[in-house]
């Protein structure tokens, strides 16, 4: 109980980017929600392939295959984008020390593309690299968790139902990304994910799970 109070206090101190506070949950509900939030993300080393449809704000759209492989650390992964014909369009590695782009076919070689893409993968597939600072109930009565990531941004998971979870990424209190994880997860991978990026370069991604290892 005391530990929970400390975590809550840390969460409030960090402020979660000025987000509305969550209503505390009684035990054992709180522990159950905490566990469900932790179970949202795969653990250990894993590989996954998705069919990805993208739609950019300015009208460009298309599809590609995405393959991601993570190592045991849970913080490093390599991501490859393939054209439907199997050509490697983009290949990069993420680690806490930075992003290394191995291959980027124009126009995917634009500055910042790699970081943005890998950041989306982090949000969808990797447990946030920071403490779970808030667990509670939102104004709409939904169980919610918040993590404070190492880069200062806040990840929020709203557990709508066992087959529907909403992830939000906040940067400086502003909503930067929102994702829906839909369907009953296979090895913790949702069968379908929809991501929306806000801001000047807005876009939407729809990911359909193909295979996991």
């Amino acid at each position, binding site marked *: 109980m005391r530990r929970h109070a400390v975590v809550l206090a840390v969460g409030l101190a960090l402020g979660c980017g000025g987000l509305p506070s969550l209503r505390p949950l009684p035990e054992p509900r709180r522990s159950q929600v905490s566990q469900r939030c932790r179970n949202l993300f795969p653990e250990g080393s894993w590989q996954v*392939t998705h069919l990805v449809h993208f739609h950019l704000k300015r009208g460009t759209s298309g599809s590609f295959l995405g393959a991601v*492989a993570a190592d045991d650390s849970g913080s490093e992964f390599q991501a490859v984008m393939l054209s439907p014909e*199997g*050509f490697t369009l983009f290949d990069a590695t993420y680690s806490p020390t930075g992003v290394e782009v191995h291959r980027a*076919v*124009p126009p995917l070689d634009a500055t910042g593309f790699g970081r943005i893409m890998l950041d989306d993968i982090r949000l969808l597939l990797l447990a946030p690299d920071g403490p779970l600072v808030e667990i509670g109930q939102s104004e709409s009565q939904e169980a919610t968790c918040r993590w404070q990531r190492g880069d200062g941004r806040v990840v929020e998971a709203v557990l709508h139902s066992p087959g529907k979870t909403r992830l939000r990424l906040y940067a400086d209190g502003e909503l930067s990304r929102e994702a829906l994880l839909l369907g009953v997860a296979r090895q913790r991978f949702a069968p379908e994910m929809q991501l929306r990026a806000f801001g000047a370069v807005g876009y939407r991604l729809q990911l359909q799970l*193909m295979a996991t290892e």
Partner: protein
Amino acid sequence: MVGASSVLLASILTLLSPVLGAWTDDWAGIRAAANKVQSLQADFTQTKHLKILKRPIVAQGKFYYRRPGQIRWEYTSPVKSVVLLDESGLRRYTWRGNRWVRDAGANLGPVHAVLREMDLWMRGDFTSSKVFAPRLEPGSPAKIHLSPRDAALKKYVSGIDLVLSSSPGVVDRIEITEGPGASTRIDLQRVKLNHRIPDKVFESVQ
């Protein structure tokens, strides 16, 4: 009696074929064999190997070609997508939300450069390509190795091998090497030569 003669003739021709030469012996033979192909359709299996994946990504599809220069390169799984190529250019469609959607504005130069070369390959015209330098490797099976001429393209495709069939004008397999840790193998099966292919196959994604 006529039947026995035909069998005997066929046997003699088979035995002599190494002496008489195969269609894959030189560029002229390859061009001549390709010139007899008015249309081709085949199923294919594409196996994509990536260093980061334990298992390859396997795709299935259908390929259609008709002279002069109409191609339909269709994937039926896991992604439903179609590339249509003719004199007007290249169009790609993907099946999304229960309908075909044309990929808009996603011009991926190196990918399109390779796809556009397919028309030349089907005509047996490898030597006039401005994109790839060809090298014929006779043998059984014979191979045509294509090296990108352009240093920019070489960054994305280090080489392409076309493994030729014993049937004149037919390619059995395409192997695309992108670099260390990434390669694609496309095996053609159930190849039909010079069958009538309806116009709509090349004109419409449906």
